[in-house]
């Protein structure tokens, strides 16, 4: 029961932080709201039986990505509020309409209540050991590929930033 209450609270807070992150005028506030959303997600992961992912979520998203965003915003002084009024172009209005459609579709697809299994059927489900075992046992190739993509990402970022003699 307590799980249910916690879940609803988390869900509501998630929607709120998401909304604020998207509508905030100042990028710093937006980034901070994103950090909050990541914390809440990590809490949700704990509720859903993924403790290891919860930890990873906090470490990577909040610890690395959020800091990176803030760093860039501060470094280049990008935190000026966009004072210019948001233009409501036809495209913007259209995206709202699309949103409504998507929501309708989502409810249509999810109709009929599906109960989550109560309690953990496997001891240690979602633990670091469990994740690691699966990752290295059944997903070794994707795992290696992902690491390779990270490497490429690093190279790419460096190449972009590097000062060249001629542009």
């Amino acid at each position, binding site marked *: 029961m307590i799980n249910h209450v916690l*879940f609803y609270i988390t*869900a509501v807070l*998630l*929607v709120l932080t*998401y909304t604020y*992150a*998207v509508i905030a005028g100042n990028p710093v506030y*937006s*980034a901070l709201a994103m950090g909050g*959303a*990541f914390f809440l*997600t990590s809490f*949700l*992961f704990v*509720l*859903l*039986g*993924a403790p290891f*992912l919860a930890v*990873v*979520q906090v470490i*990577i*998203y909040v610890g*690395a*990505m959020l800091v*990176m*965003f803030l760093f*860039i915003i501060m470094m*280049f002084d*990008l935190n000026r509020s*966009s004072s*210019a009024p*948001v233009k409501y172009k036809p495209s*913007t209005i259209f*995206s709202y309409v699309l*949103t409504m459609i998507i*929501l309708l579709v989502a409810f249509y*697809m*999810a109709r*009929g*209540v*599906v*109960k*989550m*299994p109560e309690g953990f*059927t496997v001891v240690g*489900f979602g633990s670091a050991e469990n*994740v690691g075992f*699966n990752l290295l046992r*059944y*997903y070794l190739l*994707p795992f290696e590929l*992902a690491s390779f993509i*990270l490497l490429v990402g*690093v190279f*790419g*970022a*460096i190449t*972009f*930033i590097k000062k060249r003699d001629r542009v």
Partner: protein
Amino acid sequence: MSYQLLVVLSFVLFVIGMIGVAMRRNIIIVLISLELMLNAVNILFVAASKYLHTMDGQIFVIMVITIAAAETAIALALVVKIFKTVGMVKIDDMKKLKW
């Protein structure tokens, strides 16, 4: 806590992120919205993982996080480069490449 509810939550969050991508003109906020969209998908994966009793969803989340990290690094590098070259970060001003 039903699976359906989690799906709907994930969808709602995803759409909020999408609206951000579509509407905002500040490139940083567009990127933040993009991260939020990915995060919404992660929630769906974890929910499915629990629902189906399999670790596959969680493993996939790890992959998504990896890709998101790489993507953020590249994107921010681009932002820095654009800022250094053009001096602004408004998306709808960047039409120089159009032919």
